[in-house]
């Protein structure tokens, strides 16, 4: 009797946890499922006001924006994510500088390429905007599946698994950074990363190679895919 009653109390004390779990919100988050993400980009905000979606935002509680989110033109959420993953020892300012210099270097490389290009076709194909190249690079490096080790009957099999969007992005960023760090030392990190980004945007380079390697292995191991459930 007492047991069931205490269970009752627990559930009434924490009414949202089950709801939270069902709404795909992080279960340790203090925000319940009714909280919505903030809108930082002024363009987005304008759209919301114009299309009349403002009503959905007005009377709902909004999560606070993360500390590194700004409405500045230097801000891009994916770049912020990249910076965070690049950072070590809490040196965010250094990473931000490195990212700025990397983008600058990308531009310089592309302009050099433009000046050296001989045909109009080549010239038109060159993208100058480092942000576009950055996004493209990450898109091209994102894997579709991942391999997980499953032990069956004493043997470990590499089983292809589906991968969430966040994990894809993380993998892509991690591989790009590792590819950047692989290069020989005298070249500074911004120069190395610039080369990596441009290569990845053109589907070349070691980061993309890693992705294709992974895809190849997934393809090779597709026979074990049923071990996910068996």
């Amino acid at each position, binding site marked *: 009797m007492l047991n069931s*009653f205490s269970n009752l*109390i627990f559930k009434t004390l924490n009414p949202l946890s089950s709801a939270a779990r069902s709404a795909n919100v992080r279960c340790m988050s203090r925000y319940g499922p009714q909280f919505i993400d903030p809108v930082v980009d002024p363009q987005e905000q304008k759209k919301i006001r114009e299309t009349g979606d403002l009503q959905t935002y007005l009377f709902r509680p909004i999560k606070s924006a993360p500390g590194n989110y700004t409405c500045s033109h230097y801000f891009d959420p994916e770049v912020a994510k990249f910076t965070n993953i690049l950072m070590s020892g809490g040196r965010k300012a250094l990473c931000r500088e490195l990212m700025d210099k990397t983008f600058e270097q990308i531009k310089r490389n592309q302009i050099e390429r433009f000046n050296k290009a001989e045909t109009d076709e080549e010239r038109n194909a060159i993208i100058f905007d480092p942000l576009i190249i950055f996004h493209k690079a990450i898109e091209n490096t994102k894997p579709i599946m991942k391999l997980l080790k499953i032990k069956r009957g004493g043997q470990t099999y590499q089983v292809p698994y589906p991968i969430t969007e966040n994990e894809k992005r993380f993998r892509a960023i991690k591989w790009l950074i590792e590819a950047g760090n692989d290069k020989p030392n005298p070249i500074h990190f911004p120069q190395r990363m610039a080369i990596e980004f441009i290569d990845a945007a053109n589907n070349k380079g070691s980061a993309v190679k890693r992705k294709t390697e992974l895809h190849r292995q997934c393809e090779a191991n597709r026979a074990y895919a049923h071990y996910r459930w068996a």
Partner: protein
Amino acid sequence: MIVSKPWNELFVTCRSVASIHVRSLFQTSALLQTETEGLLDDDEEFRVIDLKKTSQKSVKKFQREEKPVLPPRYTRMPVDQDWASVWPGPRSFHPATVPLPMFQGNMSDGLPPVGKFANAELMKIPNFLHLTPPAVKKQTEALRKFCTAWPEGLETDEKIEQHFPLEVITSDYCHSAPKIRDPKARIVTVKFKVKALKLGKHSKDKFKRLCKDNYSEERDDVCIVADRCPVRKQNYEYAMYLITALYHEAWNFAEWEKEKSEVDMEYYDWDLNKSKQSYVQLKCWPGKPNPETVDFNTPEAIKYRNAVTDLFNKGEDVDTLAKYKEAVKDILGLS
């Protein structure tokens, strides 16, 4: 059978949360009790089912006595009241007592400033509401019988300085403790302005250097704090001795003072510096520089001299540099 101690205790501890559940259980148990009672006592009357529980007395919730909240005091204040009685002494700000519409706080985005109620900023800052002119007047009137007239001939600050150049500051302390004395009472501060002393050009400079940190350039006064002796009288005598010694020493001219060089100068003298030589060289070009042939009283020379002197003596900033630039352009003959 169900109503027992454990349930009551539970009701006390988990009141807010589980009250509904427990109360309903409690009520059903009470109902069962009345039911059994009826069965035993009265067989004849047909018991009507009481679903809506109208016969039962509702348990009255413990109601706290609500005290009436009076309007704030300032709404009942007459305009011609004696403010000194309302706020007789220093007191931290109390919004209900102060009849003024006050706002304190920096608000942005066109929001109105924060009012006086629950305003921590108004409470933090010192207020002088106990020192309104009528209150001060009242106090001065009360003190008047203890005061003598302000002496004639001491109306202005300058006259006071002229007649009483020396200011001696001491402080008395009293403790209501086993020891009534305070060692701080021995401290004697002596202040005076340098212009009160008869000093020449050299002696003034020497005096200031001898005083070191005790001399303040902004106020042009010397402040000596004497506390090295245990008794106030001794400290006072020491301070007087110091002033005498400094004064007489300032008038002494020692042999080694002749070795004072350009580096030791406390101000920039254009005549003694290279800037004058550069000017002479400029004016005598292409000939040999000869100071006697150069006229230093032309307006441009004077302007240049003042500009350079100001740069060093007044300090270098945008204005002095601009003046210097103009002066140089003049002497170089540029537009």
